[in-house]
């Protein structure tokens, strides 16, 4: 069952940008509008994601400012913030709105600047990212975001025998995929040895296990199923699930299950009337290599504990049987927080249209996006399909 359709996509390169947030977002949004061929007057509402503009740039209340920049002043608009799941949550709310008939056509997008262009260095950004962990029960320990996923991954390694080498294979694969993506932050290959030789950030994660700080923007035009027919290349959204989980970490039953991802996946598969087996590829939230392993299990691509060996065996490569992150993922494509969720929708759309250029997979018909926030306590899962 089609819940909504994506009829236009736009995205800046991810990397280092010195433009203000409104202009950076404007590039992606105008590209999405042009790609769809939508008349601005036909856009009913603006679902916007930005995670940390207040902290990094003293810039809030951005929705009306961005709308003005792209000629949509006056439009209904709302800004979402759900840590790294920010713009996927905007997307989920937009899909629900057009599915329920609240709107016919909406603009969904996100923007973020995380590089030193904001004036903030690694220590300050590490502190800002830590704001997504529990203020009272986690931040005072000095826990960082690499540290959060390190805790989950170390327990996964203990329980299943996942190795640092397997983690490194995730980075190697995603860097390779990034070389085929002209919008990727990193366009160079790496090796298992280079990953393992890079300095430790939070063990078991080396620097090369971590996604970069990136600047960038992504936008999509979402319409209702019936309106979609009037557009050239609609791609259908057949399921969107979202769930939260317990915070802080000490309250979770099984820390590496990333239970919200499992709950959201179950919802999305049920809506789409599909199963993991029938999903051809996925874009998952590989903020750290270990996060991709956990995600590959949570979305049902592999049994629990098989994620590490599968990565090492090349099963998640673009030419493997379970491709994950053909875009390069957060690791190589980059991770401008509030833009990441929608950038996954852009990648799914381009792959399903057959428009993905050098990184095009072999005729996929169904893709999944997995975007998480915080310690995965917010996770959004979206299933997109070639229009039937």
């Amino acid at each position, binding site marked *: 069952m089609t819940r909504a359709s994506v009829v236009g996509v736009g995205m800046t390169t991810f990397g280092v940008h010195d433009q203000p947030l409104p202009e950076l977002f404007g590039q992606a949004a105008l590209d999405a509008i042009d790609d769809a061929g939508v008349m601005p007057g036909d856009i009913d509402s603006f679902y916007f994601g930005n995670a940390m503009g207040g902290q990094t740039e003293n810039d809030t209340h951005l929705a009306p400012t961005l709308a003005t920049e792209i000629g949509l002043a006056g439009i209904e608009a709302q800004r979402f913030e759900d840590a790294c799941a920010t713009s996927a949550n905007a997307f989920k709310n937009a899909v629900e709105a057009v599915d329920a008939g609240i709107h016919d056509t909406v603009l969904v997008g996100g923007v973020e600047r995380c590089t030193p262009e904001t004036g903030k260095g690694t*220590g300050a950004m590490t502190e800002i990212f830590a704001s997504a962990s529990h203020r*009272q029960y986690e931040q005072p*320990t*000095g826990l*960082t975001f690499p540290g959060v996923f390190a805790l989950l991954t170390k327990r996964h390694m203990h329980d299943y025998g996942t190795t640092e080498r397997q983690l490194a294979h995730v980075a190697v694969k995603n860097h390779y995929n990034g070389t085929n993506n002209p919008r990727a932050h990193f366009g160079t290959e790496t090796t298992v040895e280079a990953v393992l030789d890079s*300095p430790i950030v939070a*063990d078991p994660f080396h620097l090369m296990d971590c996604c970069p700080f990136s600047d960038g923007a992504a936008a999509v035009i979402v319409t209702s199923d019936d309106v979609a027919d009037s557009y050239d290349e609609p791609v259908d959204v057949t399921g969107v699930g979202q769930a939260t989980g317990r915070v802080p970490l000490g309250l979770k039953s099984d*820390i590496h299950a990333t239970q919200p991802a499992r709950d959201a996946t179950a919802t999305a598969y049920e809506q789409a009337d599909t199963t993991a087996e029938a999903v051809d590829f996925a874009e998952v939230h590989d903020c750290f290599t270990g996060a991709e392993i956990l995600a590959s299990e949570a979305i049902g691509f592999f049994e629990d504990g098989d994620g590490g060996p599968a990565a090492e065996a090349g099963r998640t490569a673009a030419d493997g049987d379970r491709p994950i992150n053909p875009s390069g993922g957060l690791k190589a494509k980059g991770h401008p927080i509030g833009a990441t969720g929608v950038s996954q929708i852009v990648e799914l759309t381009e792959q399903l249209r057959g428009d993905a250029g050098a990184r095009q997979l072999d005729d996929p018909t169904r893709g999944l996006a997995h975007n998480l926030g915080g310690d995965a306590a917010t996770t959004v899962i979206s299933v997109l399909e070639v229009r039937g």
Partner: protein
Amino acid sequence: MTDAFNYDAWTSALERGELLGGRCQSCETTFGTPVMVCPDCSHRGLAPTPLAETGTVHTVTRIEVPPTGFEGPFFVGIVELEDARLTARIEADDGEPEIGDSVTFAGGLSAAPDGRVAPLFRLD
């Protein structure tokens, strides 16, 4: 309902060198930190209860790149104290704490730039 067990009670105890958890008065589960409603059974109001002072490392990481205001490297882990878990600093005289290692509560640590206290454990 007894006096609410909240952050103020938890952190004040920690500053005095006491480690309190919250015990659900309905399902009797103990949690490492306060919460207004029991996550397991939805009962309101956990009662403060002293946590076991020794336990094991459930998971741990060595933070080499700390946030502004913290001095690294240091170890942060989740410690398991009977059925309760919480996030804590772990210190080791030598070697590295590993999952399954025994640890003992060693008071509150004020390492954060704003002076907020965190539980500190030492590797046995």
